[in-house]
């Protein structure tokens, strides 16, 4: 074939043409702009309008940000320096950053303690979030709550040690008896932990707390973004296991358990969070004698945890309902008991389906922690609305402060959302 061609069609080129760049309009940024921005006349119009809107926004905000002042000591001085020109007064952030992050009562020389706890949080969370890491790291995760408590609240080291011992005793009793009966193991474990805690509580005296190496900081003195982080992290991590238990309980065939779970979920979901917070802060004060009331922080944690657990339970129930019945039957046919079936077959699949929903609740919950400002706890928003805006120097600064709060919350919530998308990709085992 090639031979005939060579002789009969001598005009055919024998050497190839050197490669050339594609035409200018069909490559590079021009092509990209054509395809994406100006594909049709309507697209073109939309692009121009959008560009104009972006220009308007930037033209309004950029001079304000770039012209910002960082070093004055009051709003009046800012206005004096700006002298009528546009510009932000970021001095409030440089002067009050510590109050925004830690609240106004946390002792300044102890800021390293919550900061260290915050850094360790990443170490503790890493093995839970990224399961490629060595499993041994989970030991640190288990210890983290006690370390963080000791760092943030201080006081005598006996408190976290007694707490750990109680958990160890409870865990041991559970392991010992769970083979016989789940109920014996479960309740035995709880009783053992309570016994250890109560005995240990006798050891811890007021004097020990005062003489401790780490200065004790009462809950009342916590505040700022630290409080939001603490509430968010504690409540999310407590409410996921509680939510799973509630979701399973709601599907239980035992009527008593089922109805307890249903009533709990429906009641909590039917009440606004702010009502629960008011109950925690105002009503409970009437029930306890003034000197022996439960710590306000703990009361709020319990209320927010219950609230988000009810929501997470419903999300997980959705995941359970989405599993084909065959999965349950397959587990039964393998001869697995209830706990094994749930742990090995049902929950891994149901939880995977529920991830976007759980993350949605977690992000919402994290932002809801700002509601504690209405019961006069000084979280980030409480600090802004109360003390900082009420000071003579900074009364009248809004955009800078609330923008800073929005930025902090955005960073955390965006991080959570990115992680969940990574997790979904990582767990995508189905054939799509």
């Amino acid at each position, binding site marked *: 074939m090639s031979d005939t061609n060579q002789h009969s069609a001598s005009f055919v080129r024998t050497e190839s043409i050197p490669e050339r760049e594609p035409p200018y309009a069909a490559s590079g940024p021009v092509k990209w702009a054509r395809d994406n921005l100006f594909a049709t006349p309507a697209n073109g119009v939309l692009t121009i309008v959008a560009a104009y809107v972006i220009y308007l926004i930037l033209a309004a905000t950029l001079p304000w940000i770039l012209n910002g002042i960082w070093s004055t000591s009051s709003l009046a001085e800012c206005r004096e320096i700006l002298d009528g020109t546009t510009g932000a007064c970021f001095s409030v952030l440089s002067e009050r950053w510590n109050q925004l992050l830690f609240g*106004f009562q946390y002792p300044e020389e102890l800021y390293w303690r919550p900061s260290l706890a915050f850094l360790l949080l990443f170490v503790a969370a890493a093995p839970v979030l990224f399961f490629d890491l060595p499993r041994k790291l989970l030991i640190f995760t288990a210890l983290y709550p006690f370390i963080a408590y000791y760092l943030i609240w201080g006081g005598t080291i006996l408190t976290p040690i007694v707490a750990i011992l109680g958990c160890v005793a409870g865990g041991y009793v559970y392991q010992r008896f769970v083979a016989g009966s789940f109920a014996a193991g479960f309740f035995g474990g709880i009783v053992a932990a309570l016994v250890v805690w109560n005995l240990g509580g006798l050891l811890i005296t007021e004097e020990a707390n005062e003489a401790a190496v780490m200065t004790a900081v009462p809950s*009342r003195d916590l505040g700022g973004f630290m409080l939001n982080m603490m509430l968010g992290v504690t409540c999310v991590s407590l409410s996921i296991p509680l939510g799973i238990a509630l979701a399973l309980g709601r599907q239980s065939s035992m009527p008593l358990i089922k109805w307890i779970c249903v009533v709990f979920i429906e009641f909590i979901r039917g009440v606004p969070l702010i009502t629960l917070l008011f109950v925690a802060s*105002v009503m409970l*004060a009437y029930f306890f*004698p003034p000197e022996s009331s439960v710590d306000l922080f703990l009361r709020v944690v319990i209320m927010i945890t219950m609230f988000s657990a009810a929501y997470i339970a419903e999300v997980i129930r959705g995941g359970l309902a989405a599993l084909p019945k065959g999965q349950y039957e397959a587990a039964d046919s393998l001869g697995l008991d209830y706990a094994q079936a749930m742990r090995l077959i049902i929950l891994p699949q149901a939880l995977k389906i529920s991830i976007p929903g759980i993350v949605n609740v977690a992000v919402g919950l994290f932002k809801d922690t700002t509601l504690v400002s209405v019961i*006069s706890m000084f979280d980030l928003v*409480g600090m802004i609305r109360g*003390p900082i805006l009420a000071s003579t120097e900074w009364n009248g600064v*809004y955009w800078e402060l609330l923008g800073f709060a929005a930025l902090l919350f955005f960073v955390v919530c965006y991080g959570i959302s990115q992680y969940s998308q990574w997790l979904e990709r990582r767990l995508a085992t189905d054939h799509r």
Partner: protein
Amino acid sequence: MKKSVLLGALTVAGLAAGAAAAGTLDDVKARGTLNCGVTTGLVGFAAPDANGEWNGFDVSVCRAVAAAVLGDPSAVEFVPTTGKTRFTALASGEIDMLARNTTWTFSRDVDLKFTFVGVNYYDGQGFMVPKALGVSSAKDLDGATVCIQTGTTTELNLADFFRANNISYEPVPIETNAEAQQQYLAGACDVYTTDASGLAATRATFEAPGDHVLLPEIISKEPLGPLVRHGDDEWGDVVRWTLNALITAEELGVTSANVGEMASGSGNPEVKRLLGTEGTLGEMLGLDADWAQKAIATQGNYGEIFAKNIGEETPIGLARGLNAQWTNGGLIYSPPFR
């Protein structure tokens, strides 16, 4: 039979409650700190500074009581309360006294069962409008939108005033003063109404204070003062007479600077009784003889406290007005120390 058992139980409960509530003074002394309810932040009246130290007009009253009872003006645990949580905090015993620009009214005194121990600031509700609105009297405000703090007496006064003048308004409910300020500046309401002191303080922080006017009408009486629970008169007396001591000190010319020499060198017997160098007034209250001396030395007299926190030298710039001593035509008046 059943009834008597029930009554008996109630009596016991009542006695127990009475016994528990009777000793606030002893409780405070045993605890070593005074739990004082304040606002979460109101310019000039109570706010923490950059170091987290509480300062302000109401805060000074708390500190004066702590100085008188415990000898240490910093032995105060400040419990921030909102307009909604303040009364439950006091009634439940979480705080020993409330100094939170709270208006003394009949129902709060009688129905909510609190004892107002005096008045530290005579206020009244006023209106602020932008000059551009061209309004010169509150009676021209027919149909206006009004920013108003919820859960306060100002809300009720406003309704009364508009009804009495047969004009209509549209309320824009808001939670805190800071929020109100922003709403007002953003144009969410035509009028902002709250206590005149608050309006003046708010206007002072505006970028262009001259563009806003305070209307001449003052539509209510707002005597603000510290309060304690019903049923513990000994403690009520301590707070009442600490406040009176600050007022009397101004009247008699005792200041934080000269209190030491006045105590020893003054020829005026009332000064001597007040400062404890003569008579046994401190002992009658269950306090040290120099209780008032400590309060005045650390906080200054009433006039000094006023000038330092909200007076004309401060950015808030309030004139004494009704809050001048009775000798200068004001209403501030203390019963004699005798």
